[in-house]
C-alpha cells in the first residue's frame, strides 16, 4: 500500500511542479493523472501494482469532497439571492451538454458508416 501511495503522490507532485513551473491552467493532479496513464502504457506491471490502492481511493471518491461541500455554509447568502439564476444555468446547461454530446456521437458514427 505504501509504495503505491508514494507513486500516486509522486505523480501528483510532478504534476504540481509542472503546472506551477510552466504556469499551466491544468491542475497538478490532472497532469498527474495523465502521467499515470502514460506510465501504465509504458510499463503495464505498474498498473497491477497500483490497482488495489487505486480501487480503494476510487471506491471512496465521494467522501473526499464532503469537506469542500460543507463550505457552502459560508456562502448561503449568495445561494439565497442568486438561487434562481444558478438553478437555471445549471439545469439548462447540463441538459444541453448531454443532448449535444449524444447527438454528435451518433451523428459521427452515422457519417463514418456511410463512407465505409
Amino acid at each position: 500500500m505504501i509504495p503505491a501511495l508514494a507513486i500516486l503522490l509522486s505523480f501528483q507532485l510532478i504534476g504540481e511542479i509542472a503546472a506551477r513551473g510552466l504556469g499551466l491552467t491544468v491542475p497538478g493532479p490532472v497532469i498527474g493523472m495523465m502521467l499515470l496513464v502514460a506510465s501504465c502504457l509504458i510499463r503495464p506491471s505498474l498498473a497491477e501494482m497500483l490497482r488495489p490502492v487505486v480501487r480503494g481511493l476510487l471506491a471512496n471518491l465521494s467522501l473526499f469532497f464532503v469537506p469542500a461541500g460543507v463550505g457552502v455554509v459560508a456562502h448561503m447568502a449568495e445561494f439565497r439571492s442568486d438561487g434562481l439564476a444558478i438553478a437555471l444555468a445549471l439545469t439548462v446547461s447540463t441538459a444541453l451538454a448531454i443532448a449535444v454530446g449524444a447527438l454528435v456521437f451518433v451523428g459521427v458514427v452515422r457519417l463514418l458508416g456511410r463512407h465505409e
Partner: protein
Amino acid sequence: MTDAALIWSYLSRGPLLWLTATLFAYWIGDRCFRAAGRQSWANPVMVAVALLAVLLELTGTSYQTYFEGAQFVHFMLGPATVALGMPLFDNLHRVRKALLPLLAALTAGSLTAVVSVLVIAKATGLSPVMMASLAPKSTTAPVAIGIAEGLGGEPTITAVLVLLTGIFGAIIATPLLNLLKIHDWRARGLSVGVAAHGIGTARAFQVNETAGAFAGIGMGLNAVLTAIIAPLVLRLFQ
C-alpha cells in the same frame, strides 16, 4: 470531575472531532443512499453536507475550525484525481475503437457545458466569482475545484455546484436520451459522463455496462479537456 464545557472547548479546537464527524456524516449519507435503492437524488455527499452544515450551525462552529479537522479528508482529492487515470487506462481499447465519434462528442459536449452555463450566467447577471465557480461544473469534483481555484472562483461553491449538476444530470439523462431516440449505449454513456461526471457515471453503470464504461471515459477525458478550455472560454466572457 471536569466541566463538560472544558472538554468541549478542548475538542472543538482540535482536528479529531470534525474529522470523526465528517466520516460519520458520510457513513449516514451512504446508508441513506443504499436505503433509497441508490437513487440519484439521495446522493450520499449531499446528505453528509446537509448533516454537517446543520451540526456546524447548532454548535456555532466556523467553517475554518471545521476545515482544520476535515482537511485530512480534503487532501485525498489530489491522489484520488491521479487514481482516475486507472479506469481511463483500462478502457483505452474502447477509446481506440470509437476514436472519432468519441473525440467529437467529447469536444462538443464539453464546450456546450462550459459555454452554455456562462451564457446563462452572464445573461442573468451573476457575479464574476460565481461565473468562474460555475464554469467547470460538469467536471469531476476534485478537478473542478482545482480549475475554479485557478480561475478566481470560490472552490467551496464549485463543490456544491458540481454535486447539483451531477445529481440533475443523473436524473434527467434517461428520459432526455429516450426523448431524443438515442439507442447507442456508447453515445448515451459518454454524453452523461462528460456532462454529469462521477454521479452521472454511477447512474450509467446502473443502466448498462457499456454505457457505464463510456461514461467513465467521458468523465476522465473531460477532466483534462475542461482544464484546458474553461480558462479560454471564461476569458471571452470577461
